[in-house]
């Protein structure tokens, strides 16, 4: 409708009460240095003017005088496209503690974040601040007098797991030699490649999703853990390829190469084959992602700058969407077998190859298919609490399957087939969501996982990622990450020191290692992971206990 010209002001403006974060600015503390407005990644705050006009009176009779003052203020804008994301960079740079965003639990953000019919896209993970199932599990079987408790500080531990298919003894081509059982290397039986790795893996975060210093910092930390501390931690590449310098280095063996439906960067990988001095730790075939099941990878154009365009082999500044599925897939059997075989061939069947799927009710069908495929090295399942660099909010918040019962069902299926020691299951999605990294990993292992994979936790712990389940920040998709973690803008990512990231990664793994021992030692485990040792687990919630087949305690 035609407005009375120039007279419309706030008719369709949202009140700040609808916004998820409300800026608390203190006039009395602010010295108007502008650091907050300079640093705000979304321009949610702007310098503006305020008019004070007071009609006063002095003396014994009404004797009015008007004072009028115009002062500068810092103001939050009411534009939903520039909503405050709560990152608190303003507070970080403010020299006077004059400004901070405050979470508004009564916000109506999702009612409005659909302008121009654009469904809300973001980074991060499911916005659900309640504790996950994993965080509701307790370790209740504490050995004291019943069987020897181990001392986490004193005993030597061997916290390792196997990535790769383990042949049962009866299938191994064994022969006696000088009174010893040895593997018959001349046998025609295929012995699948197996890696002994640390049971916490770093999940797939692509070059592209992450900034160069973030990715390189993690990679360097992984190399340090392996070479300086002897912890065989492996890291998956994500689907954005890998820089040739790493492909051709000796560090390559600590990395899992991911191939996803977009096949980004694979020409560089294939071209590097002749120059590789090491095999990769494994190959992960991505079929799904916990954060956005049924959606392919998505790298928003803001992040597709020079580096990404060259590594991925794509034009600059285009949205890079991977299809939700591998395009040449016609059936489970055909697709999985074909992909596993192709990837195995690339490295002469010397490298474990496994698919990764999102948590789903159909996970068991996939698992049972893999159980029959002699080349399948593992199954990785990524639950609903997994993170991502970019996805539709609805996919993140509402799509997917929690990891706990998914892993449990799969493991018990293997048990039924007697194959629980043959095909490792890797669990991911919300591991360490509330900071309880080791406890979540231990719980998953005791539910049946051979290893757990972490992503978001790593970003939070190593690079101070601000994201949380109150939708704080979650700017990953926009390329405006204020920490420099998920951006390709040098002005932002040069804030991040890759050495610090590496150092923090090492801290994280060392501390988690101690905590895992603190969990496993009282349960009497030191040399074998308690995979599937569900009698050590309990839940304080009867439904959860029943579903997971563990005891209920209260």
């Amino acid at each position: 409708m035609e407005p009375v010209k120039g007279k419309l002001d706030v008719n369709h403006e949202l009140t700040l009460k609808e916004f998820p974060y409300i800026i608390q600015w203190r006039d009395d503390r602010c010295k108007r240095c502008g650091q907050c407005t300079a640093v705000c990644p979304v321009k949610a705050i702007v310098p503006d003017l305020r008019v004070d006009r007071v009609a006063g009176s002095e003396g014994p009779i009404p004797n009015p005088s008007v004072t009028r003052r115009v002062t500068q203020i810092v103001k939050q804008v009411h534009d939903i496209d520039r909503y405050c994301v709560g990152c608190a960079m303003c507070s970080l740079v403010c020299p006077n503690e004059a400004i901070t965003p405050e979470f508004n639990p009564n916000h109506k953000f999702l009612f409005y974040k659909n302008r121009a019919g654009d469904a809300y896209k973001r980074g991060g993970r499911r916005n659900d601040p309640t504790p996950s199932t994993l965080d509701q599990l307790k370790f209740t079987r504490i050995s004291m007098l019943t069987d020897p408790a181990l001392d986490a500080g004193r005993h030597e531990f061997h916290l390792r797991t196997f990535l790769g298919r383990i042949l049962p003894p009866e299938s191994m081509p064994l022969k006696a030699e000088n009174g010893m059982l040895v593997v018959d290397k001349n046998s025609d039986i295929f012995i699948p490649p197996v890696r002994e790795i640390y049971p916490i893996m770093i999940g797939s975060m692509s070059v592209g999703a992450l900034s160069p210093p973030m990715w390189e910092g993690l990679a360097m930390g992984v190399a340090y853990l392996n070479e300086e501390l002897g912890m065989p931690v492996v890291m998956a590449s994500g689907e954005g390829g890998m820089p040739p310098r790493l492909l051709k280095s000796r560090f390559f063996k600590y990395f899992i190469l991911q191939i996803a439906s977009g096949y980004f960067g694979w020409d560089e990988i294939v071209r590097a084959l002749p120059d590789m001095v090491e095999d990769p730790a494994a190959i992960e075939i991505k079929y799904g992602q916990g954060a956005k099941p049924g959606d392919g990878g998505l790298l928003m154009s803001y992040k597709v700058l020079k580096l990404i365009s060259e590594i991925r082999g794509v034009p600059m500044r285009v949205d890079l969407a991977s299809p939700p599925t591998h395009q040449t897939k016609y059936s489970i059997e055909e697709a999985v077998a074909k992909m596993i075989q192709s990837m195995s061939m690339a490295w002469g069947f010397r490298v474990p190859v496994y698919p990764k799927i999102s948590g789903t009710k159909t996970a068991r069908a996939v698992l049972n298919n893999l159980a029959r495929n002699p080349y399948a090295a593992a199954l990785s399942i990524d639950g609903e609490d997994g993170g991502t660099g970019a996805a539709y909010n609805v996919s993140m918040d509402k799509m997917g399957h929690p990891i706990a019962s998914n892993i449990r069902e799969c493991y018990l299926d293997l048990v039924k087939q007697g194959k629980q020691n043959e095909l490792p299951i890797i669990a991911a999605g919300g591991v360490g969501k509330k900071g309880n990294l080791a406890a979540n990993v231990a719980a998953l292992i005791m539910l049946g996982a051979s290893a757990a994979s972490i992503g978001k936790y790593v970003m939070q712990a190593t690079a101070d990622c601000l994201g949380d389940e109150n939708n704080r920040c979650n700017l990953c998709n926009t390329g405006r990450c204020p920490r420099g973690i998920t951006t390709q803008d040098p002005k932002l990512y040069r804030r991040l020191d890759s050495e610090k990231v590496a150092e923090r990664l090492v801290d994280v793994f060392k501390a988690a290692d101690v905590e895992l021992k603190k969990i496993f030692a009282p349960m009497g485990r030191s040399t074998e992971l308690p995979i599937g040792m569900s009698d050590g687990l309990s839940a304080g919630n009867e439904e959860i206990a029943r579903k997971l087949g563990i005891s209920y305690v209260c």
Partner: protein
Amino acid sequence: MSAKEKTHKEEKIINGKIDGQRVSSRVLEERIQNAIKEGARELYVIADGQHGIGGRIWPRGDHHNGTVHVKVEGPVGQRLGSMGMEGTEIIVHGSASDDVGWINCGSRITVLGDVTNGAHNAAAQGVLYVQGGAGARCDTLTKHNPRFAPPQSWYFRNVGDSFAEFKAGGISVICGVDPRNPDNILGYRPCVGMVGGVVYFRGPIRGYSAGDVRLAELTDEDWAWLTENMRPYLEAIDRKDYYRELTKNRNDWKKLVAHTPAEKNALKKKARTFSDFRVSAWDKEVGEGGIFAPYLDHERSLLPYITTGTERRNKPVWANGKYNPPCAYNCPTHIPTHKRTALIRQGKFVEALDLALEYSPLPATVCGQVCPNPCMQACTRGLYIDKPVDISALGALSLSLKAPKPAKKTGHKIAVIGGGPGGLSAAWQLALKGHTVDLYEEAAKLGGKLELCIPRERLPQAVLRKELERFQEIGVKVNLKNKIDNKKFEKIYKDHEAVIVACGAHAPRMIPFEGSADAAISAYDFLKGINAEKAPVLKKKHVVVIGAGNVGMDAACEAWRLGAESVTAVDVQKPAAFGKEMDAAAALGTKILWPKVTEKYDKKEKTIYFKDGSSLEASLVIVAIGETPITGFLPETIDRVKGSWVRVDETGRTTDPKVFAIGDATKPGLVTHAIGAGREVALRLHSELMHYDYMSEVTTPIPYGRVKTAYYERCVTETGEPEKDAARCLSCGSCRDCHMCENVCYWGAISRIEKPDGQFEYIVDADKCIGCGFCAGVCPCGIREMIENI
């Protein structure tokens, strides 16, 4: 107590068997304690596997002091001498079982054989002499209470695994003589968690908990202590002859001592630094600069969150004049009022008025009289504060201005057809640029509809005449009474480099309803007749105006003036009239009815009927639904649209590149539209003739939100005086030189410079600016713009 037991002054024998039956540990303990109470100080215990023998003894009974000697024979149970106390000396003739000397608090225990696991566990004082070797976890958790001497544990052969775990104090000596494990006399992983005390040892070992202890040579002090205390030990275990061998060479001995907290911290730091790892491991393997180096073209250093210069994320730009103020943008002639008010503020009043003549030959006539002033309707001040700047008054003041001097003759020759506002405007601009202009007008006077149709009430003739006189001063060759037909056009076309058609719209549109011929007259003819002093008499007559636009309102006003009894304007849709015309007609009592679709006029009844069944009395029906241009004189090569309107592109050019058309000849509009179009076409033509690129002054209007109205108080005084009004102007999009940005900048990045041409600019020192946007946020005029710093 058994009667069989007799007390000797020297020795009390306590047998672990009574009548061939083993007594329990409880009973044996009871007997020992009773014996002590009874004064026994020499005990001879013949054990049979009882536990805890010889512990917790302090002299009691008749003799409250004295040393208690306990000689033990036979198979000994666990925890011999546990919680042993000072003054107790135990000698075991043979080996002892686990936990010998557990929590020893001062007893001296000699085992003339081996000890099994856990010997001296948690001992805090006292001495343990072992003639043989020891099992696992010996000397663990030993303490040293500073009030007492530290505990000592001496082992002649070797000790088992996990030795001295969590040792917090005390001295352990492992002599390494004839060890049962010759490769490793301290067992697997000794000293885990050890925080105090010392372990002296002699012989090969296989590692120790390096995070807790360090290996060291013996000091003089150590050696003195060891050689001195070795003697009583060897004596006690009956191995005196080994003294020489065990003390012959200090270098045979080593010690393990706990790291101090400082050493532990240093040890943590000894881990390879990440920068060292990066340089000497990572970069060395993957290449200088890391894995992404081949792709990155920026410096590999860290940036702070607040940056300056090229590292800023955003930067301010001085967008002075980049945007049009709403007045200039919305004025179809684009008269820059903001520049005029700025000149007035500088005291340059005449220059301010003169500026209007650069845009229009008729500022007093149009801005000051007939124009509805879209400039004022759009004025930020009017919309957001109080009342608009009175631009109309400024226009009226331009009446007395002298004609500007035309530029030097260019030799180019241009024809303008039509002497109405559009034609006058085009001719004015071209002539001022030095071109030769031939203007052709059909009527006897210049002015077009201003002269012919606009009621004199609204436009005093004196004003128009004066401005037309000024027009005539600049040398345009005016050909009046010169009706153009095809032939004449052809000649004009041939004789000139370009032709501008500004013939206006002079064919009134009529509605063919029943009876229209009897009473209907077009507003055009009606008004034209009045201006030509051929007005009809309307006294006591009822007048109906069909078409309630502004021309309809003019006609209504004139009808009232001619004495009409009533005037009613009807329209088929919401009336388009607005502004002064509307107000004037309403003030005189004009009724406006809509929607009314005319059906017929009944001459007899003097009534006009509408299709909704209603009717009005009407002696005269004035049809004011517009006029169309008469363009039959143009050749076929020039396209017309919707009948006679001349088709032009956005530059005003017709389908003949040499011919332009403007104003009502192309589409209906206001006088100011025609003047604006005339100027635009003239300047564009001029740039073509002079071979330079035409740059329109019209850009985009400044968004109202950019202008900071907060600075301005609502006016309490009357407006209208140009000097005061100039101060009221917000100077939208055009710097008012107030120094606000310079003052607000915390970083001192903004300064004002004057340029050689007298212009000024507020410049930003990039090395100081952090891109906070305060300058943009406070600029009263919206000059500062923040842009991404790419």
